[in-house]
C-alpha cells in the first residue's frame, strides 16, 4: 500500500514538473527586425514595426546591450571569407556589377 502511494506520488510529481522543464527549454531568444515606431526611455519600452506591419512591444532595462554600427570606408581586401555582407548590384549584360558593398565587423571579445 505504501509502495503504491510512493509510486503514485513520483508519477504525479513528474507530470507536474515536466511541463515546467519544457517551458524553460522553450525560452530561447527571439529576434525581430524593423523600424523603431516608439521609444519610451522613461517607461523603458519600445515598439518595433516589422516589414510585414507587425508591432512588437519590447521592454528594456540596464542589462540590455545597445550597439550601433558606424559606417566607415574599407577595402575589398578587408573582407574575410564567410563574412556576412550585403551588396547592391546592377546587371550589365550577363554580369552583375557591384555598386555598394557593406559588411559588419565582428566585435572583438570584451567589447
Amino acid at each position, binding site marked *: 500500500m505504501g509502495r503504491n502511494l510512493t509510486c503514485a506520488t513520483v508519477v504525479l510529481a513528474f507530470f507536474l514538473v515536466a511541463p515546467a522543464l519544457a517551458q524553460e527549454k522553450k*525560452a530561447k*531568444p*527571439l*529576434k*525581430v*527586425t*524593423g*523600424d*523603431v*515606431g516608439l*521609444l519610451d*526611455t522613461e517607461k523603458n519600452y*519600445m515598439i*518595433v514595426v516589422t516589414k510585414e506591419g507587425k508591432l*512588437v*512591444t*519590447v*521592454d*528594456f*532595462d540596464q*542589462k*540590455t*546591450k*545597445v*550597439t*550601433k*554600427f*558606424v*559606417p*566607415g*570606408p*574599407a577595402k*575589398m*581586401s*578587408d*573582407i*574575410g*571569407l*564567410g*563574412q*556576412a*555582407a*550585403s*551588396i*547592391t*548590384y*546592377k546587371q*550589365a549584360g550577363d*554580369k*552583375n*556589377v*557591384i*555598386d*555598394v*558593398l*557593406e*559588411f*559588419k*565587423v565582428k566585435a572583438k571579445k570584451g*567589447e
Partner: protein
Amino acid sequence: MNNLLSITGVVLVIFALSSCALEQEKVAPPAKPAAPAVAEAKKAAPAAKPAEAKAKPAEAKVKPVKASGDVGLMDLEKNYLILVTKEGKLITADFTGKTKVTKLVPQPAKMSDINLGQSAAVTYNAGKGGKNIATSVEYAVKAKKGE
C-alpha cells in the same frame, strides 16, 4: 418605220448603257472598306505604342538589386566574389574601382541614441506575463552625405 425602229434601237442602247452605269455606281459602295482599313491602321498605331513602351522599361530595367549573405569566394585578382544567400542561392558579382565598400563597426550606444524610424534588430526573451525583455538592440547609423 425605219426611223421609228432606229430611234427605238438608239433609246434601247442608251437605256442599256445608262443601266450599266447605274449598276457600276451601285457596285461602287464596296469601296467603303477603305475606311476600315484606315481604322485598322489607327488600331495598329496604338498597338505599336505599347511595344515602344515595353522597350523603354527594358532599358530602365537596370535597377539595382540588393542581396545579403555570406561571402563564399573572393577573388581580388579577377575582381569578383560569390555571395551565398540564406536560401543557398549563389550570386556571382564583379567589383570595380568604383565599388563603394563600407564596413560597419560596432560601438556601444545608449537607448536614447536611437531615433524614431530607425531600423533596428532586437533580440529578446519572451518573459512571463507576456512581456518581452530585450537583451540586445543593434542599429546602423546612417552615413552622412559625402561620407
